[in-house]
């Protein structure tokens, strides 16, 4: 593929990869991949799950060795056989899942593995001085003496960045860094990245979120099916083009939906209050209703009670006050229902964390696809389960929801994120529920699958289902919801018509900065 214009071509690029190939058994994870990253830039690498981004970065960081190809750092060919070699070459990596010891302080975590003296005290003193300098130069403020486990996720990520810089990294690789961050934390991360760039650090940002690419990168490279398919200067491209390059076909980024024609209220919540095990009020006197044929979106920074609200509605978590009305059925704290009873009342639930709750990753796909409905008479007789019917049912669902590969006996863990989510959605939607609770339907899901999932949700709405959607992706809420309810600190702080919502107003409500909202 054509190289993009090389701005300051006088200095050698920070990283140059030439013809990198890597095979795992039958899978060509990287095929003749070439990449040039200019020094002092933020370079995005996008691609769907399985496109080969992570493999490429793992080769650069020494986790895998390439079958063929060359790596040049600052114009010099280098051999990277281990992460040690990578660190020596000035490469640092911030993993998607942090590699931190929760009970150690920030300072101890930074020093861990980079000790230069035998005694801990000397190391820590040295590190403290060095970190003070890094903090000054890059604006990376973190409380050095706080145990890492007590820090918010955004700060933990800063510790990872500090770790890399402390080890002398001039090239920083971030693997899906925003997956766990709130919008505010993401903004702060981007500030830091810009400060790093200002100091001459080269940043490689791996993501599948187009918005982030457009917001922060200077250049972007697109991977698909193990190959590098395009390099672009970010300013010269747009989201539509990048999405098309990633997926290999035109993708509709906007959700195509007609007007809602809501009917009677199917789910009514009045004064719902949920306290957690330690007595903290998570959901505070929340009232709203969802009518058949509409999608109500709950916006909010994650951790403001949305998860507890959904779990209470699904019967997973007890609530302490208020009433939930499903059709003609009234549920109050004195007369709780378990999740199986809620399902029997026509409520389906796509949980926000499919690995923790929505699936059993160790199960075969057909076993995961009956979770929660395993007592249904179509799946089990008086004693024996109807294994053939279960497999046939799973296969039919896989066909209708385009789950790939269509192998009911494959372990759930071996499906990609998007396909796992489709297994959950198929299970919950095919029951034709009256009420559908959906949490983070597209978290960690490929862009091609997102399109499909959004269309399915709209189709459920149009079929008369009452859909309650929780998402931390504001874009998703705004494009799907007919009405948007904003939660802050367990309370509902505002409600907006979906068609009239704008990002600024919602953002202010989510930060509870509008006293007169709603």
């Amino acid at each position: 593929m054509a190289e993009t214009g090389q701005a300051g071509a006088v200095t050698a690029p920070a990283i140059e990869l030439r013809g990198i190939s890597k095979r795992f058994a039958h899978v060509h994870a990287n095929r003749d991949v070439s990449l040039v990253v200019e020094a002092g830039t933020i370079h995005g690498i996008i691609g769907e799950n399985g496109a080969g981004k992570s493999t490429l970065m793992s080769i650069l960081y020494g986790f895998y060795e390439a079958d063929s190809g060359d790596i040049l750092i600052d114009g010099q060919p280098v051999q990277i056989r281990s992460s040690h070699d990578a660190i020596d070459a000035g490469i640092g990596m911030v993993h998607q899942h942090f590699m931190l010891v929760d009970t150690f302080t920030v300072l101890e975590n930074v020093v861990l593995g980079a000790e230069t003296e035998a005694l801990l005290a000397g190391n820590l003193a040295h590190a403290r001085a060095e970190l003070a300098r890094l903090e000054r130069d890059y604006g990376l403020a973190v409380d050095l003496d706080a145990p890492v486990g007590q820090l918010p996720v955004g700060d933990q990520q800063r510790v990872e960045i500090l770790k890399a810089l402390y080890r002398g990294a001039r090239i920083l690789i971030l693997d899906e860094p925003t997956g766990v961050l709130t919008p505010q934390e993401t903004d702060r991360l981007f500030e830091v990245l810009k400060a790093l760039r200002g100091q001459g650090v080269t940043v490689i940002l791996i993501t599948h979120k187009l918005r982030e690419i457009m917001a922060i990168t200077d250049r972007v490279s697109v991977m698909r099916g193990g190959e590098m398919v395009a390099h672009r200067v970010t300013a010269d491209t747009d989201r539509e083009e990048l999405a098309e390059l990633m997926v290999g076909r035109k993708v509709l980024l906007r959700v195509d939906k007609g007007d809602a024609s809501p009917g009677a209220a199917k789910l009514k919540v009045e004064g719902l209050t949920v306290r957690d095990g330690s007595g903290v009020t998570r959901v505070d006197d929340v009232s709203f209703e969802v009518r058949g044929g509409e999608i109500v979106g709950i916006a909010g920074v994650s951790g403001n009670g949305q998860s507890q609200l959904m779990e209470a509605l699904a019967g997973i978590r007890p609530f302490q006050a208020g009433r939930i009305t499903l059709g003609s059925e009234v549920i109050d704290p004195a007369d709780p229902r378990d999740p199986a009873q809620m399902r029997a009342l026509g409520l389906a639930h796509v949980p926000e964390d499919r690995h923790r709750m929505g699936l059993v990753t160790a199960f075969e796909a057909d076993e995961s696809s009956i979770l929660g409905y395993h007592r249904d008479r179509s799946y089990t007789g008086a004693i024996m389960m109807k294994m053939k019917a279960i497999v046939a049912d799973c296969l039919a669902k896989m066909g209708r929801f385009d789950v790939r590969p269509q192998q009911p006996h494959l372990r759930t863990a071996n499906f990609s994120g998007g396909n796992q989510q489709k297994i959950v959605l198929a299970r919950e939607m095919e029951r034709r529920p009256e009420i559908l609770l959906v949490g983070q339907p597209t978290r960690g899901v490929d862009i091609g699958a997102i399109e499909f999932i959004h269309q399915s949700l709209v189709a459920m709405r149009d079929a008369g289902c009452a859909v309650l959607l929780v998402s931390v992706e504001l874009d998703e809420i705004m494009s799907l919801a007919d009405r948007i309810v904003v939660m802050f600190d367990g309370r509902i702080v505002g409600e907006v018509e979906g068609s009239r919502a704008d990002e600024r107003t919602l953002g202010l409500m989510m930060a509870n900065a509008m006293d007169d909202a709603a």
Partner: protein
Amino acid sequence: MGQVPSRLGSAPAWVGYALVPLVNITLAFLASGLVVLAIGEDPIAAMEFLVYGAFGYAEAIGYTLYYTTNFIFTGLAVAVAFHARLFNIGGEGQAYIGGLGVGLVCLAGDSMLPFALILPLCIVAGAAFGAAWAFVPAYLQAKRGSHIVITTIMFNFIASALMVYLMVNVLIKPGQMSPESREFAEAAWLPFMHEALAWIGIEVSRSPLNLSFIWALICGVGLWLLLWHTRWGYEIRTLGHNESAAVYAGISPPKVIVLTMCISGALAGFVGLNEIMGVQHRLLLNFTAGYGFAGIAVALMGRNHPVGIVLASLLFGALYQGGAELSFEIPTITREMVVVIQGLVILFCGALEYMLRPRIEALFRRPAAPQAAT
């Protein structure tokens, strides 16, 4: 789009289920050979005695299968609990109390009931007593969060003390010193295998092997059906893999914990069928002889699958029987030496299981050899 194959692919199933255990056993015997060499005996001869003693003649096979029966019961007991991520260390106590139940039925009914009634009653009693002994720790775990490992260990001691009290003070046959009950009437004897086979015209040597072996195999099949073909098994496995998902699915963890532990205790209790009703024909002390604990190693080695457990039980049965023969034939290899050899097998097949498995599986995982990297 489409499938993202797991990053490293996976090795063929036979590698995990057959090759790895085989390599582990081979290593265990090599290490045992070194021990035998160290005390100045011929390891090849020792190995020959061991195998001959376990499988060399009909009576030996009978003894091997008799031991195997106990290991199947306790191995299945540990395995079913493990599928719900419960570590049942109390198989020993549950087997002990299960045996008490069997013995009580025999003592009460042998003079008036026919065998056809005593047998099902004994099966029910063994299961019920074993299950009851597992129920208390299970209930404490489910409702109070008391750790099941601790409580089941404690219940082993309680079972042991209770049995001593009962045998010494209540059930002892009057007029004798040893704490044993009276012998059951023959109506309450589970037929030996050689007797059963004689009825259909097959003559085999006498051995303690009895019909409980058949029941053990039936239990294995039953457990397989329960775990993988019923909704109760589905719930047990869901809870074991992911408790949050179980709650999401409307499964009540306390109910499943209690149910699973009762099944586990019932299976352990069946040891009493073999030992009390099948072989001893009286109640006595210490008939469980560590089978409950060995069940943990059996389940581990059998990878918690009934087929694996039957095979692992056969290996353990062979080691028990062949080991006894070995120490008889080569007196310098004492009973304790045989225990060392058994320990090595458990060490290599159980504890060190994960030492070799990743490497062996990695060997078979990448058929496309990586080209030389530049």
